[in-house]
């Protein structure tokens, strides 16, 4: 059976070049980077090369890069660490309604610690209006955290515009670029933000590693206390092979970014255009143009996402869904709801995220397989029965 992985938003496969770069650090070069002997030197050197590579990907200085264990850790570190470091100035924090849970729940934790958290709404495409951010800024605002691109609907946010507002008021601005860094160009100086999260497994690098870029001079409170690794800002023996892999993935992402975007965009656009046409009663979620290059997301009416996912899986296609049933917490996607989609429609959420391994034939295959699957589920659906009876007058 054909195997088509269309869940690159969940995690990307590791590039062979990245794996090769990592292998020595699973072997002979095993020293602790903090050790002062040759064994430590080898690991430290590799780590610092990786730091340069990551810095170059986002136009930063190497000593502004702090390695972490995941995008989630970067976000927790940024949101909690920046707010706590500034709390003498105030306890007000602004986030968007569609942040990843690692930001939203970190903000919630800040709430338990006496912070006040304001949520900025989004429009129907999931776009944050910079004016809505400005309206919420106060004298005691110590942090704004708005994501760079949403992993669920692919929408890219106007970060530069928001940074223009926050920087004038000198409010630290963190952006979660986990879904975006390594995929499309990110330049921290040009953006004008103060902190930015990224993660290796979003651009063909390893799992278990992320980074927080922190503008020089911005104060942060560590999330992981202990030794003085990462300049005392993130303790713990460093995950050298994963860091090396992140560096290599960053290097390749920078070199190949343009060609990757060029390959992915037409595939995505075909999905966005053809799937609704072939299936019918399908809504594209997220911004129609201003979205991540490989990202196609939909809500299919009258049926539920997990069932679609499973039938696609039985045909060798991997996708994900933001339906309540797939969330384990059994709640409809907060992103889709914040965009104003009715709960019922949000249940039909389905996400097809292309990666550099995908081909036009993969798209053909999906477009061939998807309609009968939807049809089959609709034939089972009491909602579809009602719809055909009332609207079409039966079939």
């Amino acid at each position: 059976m054909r195997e088509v992985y269309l869940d690159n938003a969940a995690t990307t496969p590791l590039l062979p070049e990245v794996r090769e770069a990592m292998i020595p650090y699973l072997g002979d070069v095993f020293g602790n980077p903090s050790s002062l002997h040759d064994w430590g030197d080898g690991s430290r050197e590799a780590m610092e090369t990786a730091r340069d590579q990551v810095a170059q990907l986002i136009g930063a200085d190497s000593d502004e890069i702090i390695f972490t264990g995941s995008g989630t850790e970067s976000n927790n570190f940024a949101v909690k660490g920046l707010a706590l470091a500034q709390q003498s100035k105030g306890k007000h924090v602004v986030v968007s309604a569609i942040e990843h849970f690692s930001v939203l729940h970190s903000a919630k934790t800040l709430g338990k610690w006496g912070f006040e958290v304001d949520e900025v709404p989004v429009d129907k495409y999931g776009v944050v209006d910079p004016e809505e951010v400005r309206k919420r800024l106060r004298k005691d605002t110590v942090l704004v955290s708005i994501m760079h691109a949403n992993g669920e609907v692919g929408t890219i946010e106007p970060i530069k515009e928001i940074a223009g507002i926050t920087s004038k008021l000198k409010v630290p601005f963190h952006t979660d670029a986990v879904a975006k860094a390594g995929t499309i160009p990110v330049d921290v100086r040009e953006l004008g933000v103060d902190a930015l999260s990224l993660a290796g497994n979003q651009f063909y690098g390893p799992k278990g590693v992320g980074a927080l870029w922190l503008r020089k001079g911005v104060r942060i409170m560590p999330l992981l206390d202990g030794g003085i690794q990462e300049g005392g800002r993130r303790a713990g023996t460093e995950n050298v092979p994963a860091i090396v892999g992140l560096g290599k993935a960053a290097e390749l992402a920078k070199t190949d970014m343009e060609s990757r975007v060029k390959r992915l965009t037409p595939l995505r656009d075909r999905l966005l255009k053809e799937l609704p046409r072939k299936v019918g009663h399908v809504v594209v979620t997220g911004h129609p143009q201003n979205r991540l290059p490989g990202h196609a997301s939909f809500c299919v009416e009258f049926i539920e996402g997990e069932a679609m996912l499973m039938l696609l899986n039985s045909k060798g296609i991997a996708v994900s869904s933001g339906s309540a049933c797939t969330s384990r917490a059994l709640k409809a996607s907060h992103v889709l709801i914040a965009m104003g989609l009715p709960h019922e429609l949000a249940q039909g959420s389905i996400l097809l995220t292309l990666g550099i391994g995908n081909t036009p034939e993969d798209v053909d295959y999906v477009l061939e397989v998807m309609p009968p699957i939807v049809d089959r589920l609709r034939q089972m659906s009491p909602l579809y029965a009602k719809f055909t009876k009332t609207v079409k007058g039966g079939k």
Partner: protein
Amino acid sequence: MPIYSEKVMDHFMNPRNVGEIENPDGIGEEGNPVCGDMMTFYIKVKDNRLEDVKFKTFGCGAAIAVSSMVSEMAKGKTLEEAKKITPRLVADELEGLPKNKFHCSNLGAQALNKAIDDYLKKQQKEGGKQS
């Protein structure tokens, strides 16, 4: 490690008794698309037995498998026996369900129950003409 047992997968991939019954003796609807799952059961009763059971389900894999299993378990049973189909029994027959999916098996048994109640209510109204 798939999250679903083989039995669940079998009933999801090949659900038994999908559809509607024309002029059913009872209809039961349970759940709500807003919450993610909705099931409608249709029954045909003869001699106090469930001669036919059909369903339509909007929901996840578990919801569809549970509906199928409930329909299979119910078919041929007397109304009293069918009313004893509990969520626990359904989950056991399916060789287990993930913890967070357990509520689906509640819905299946409840929808069937509602269909039986619907039948019984109609019977009362009609003064026990049939059966």
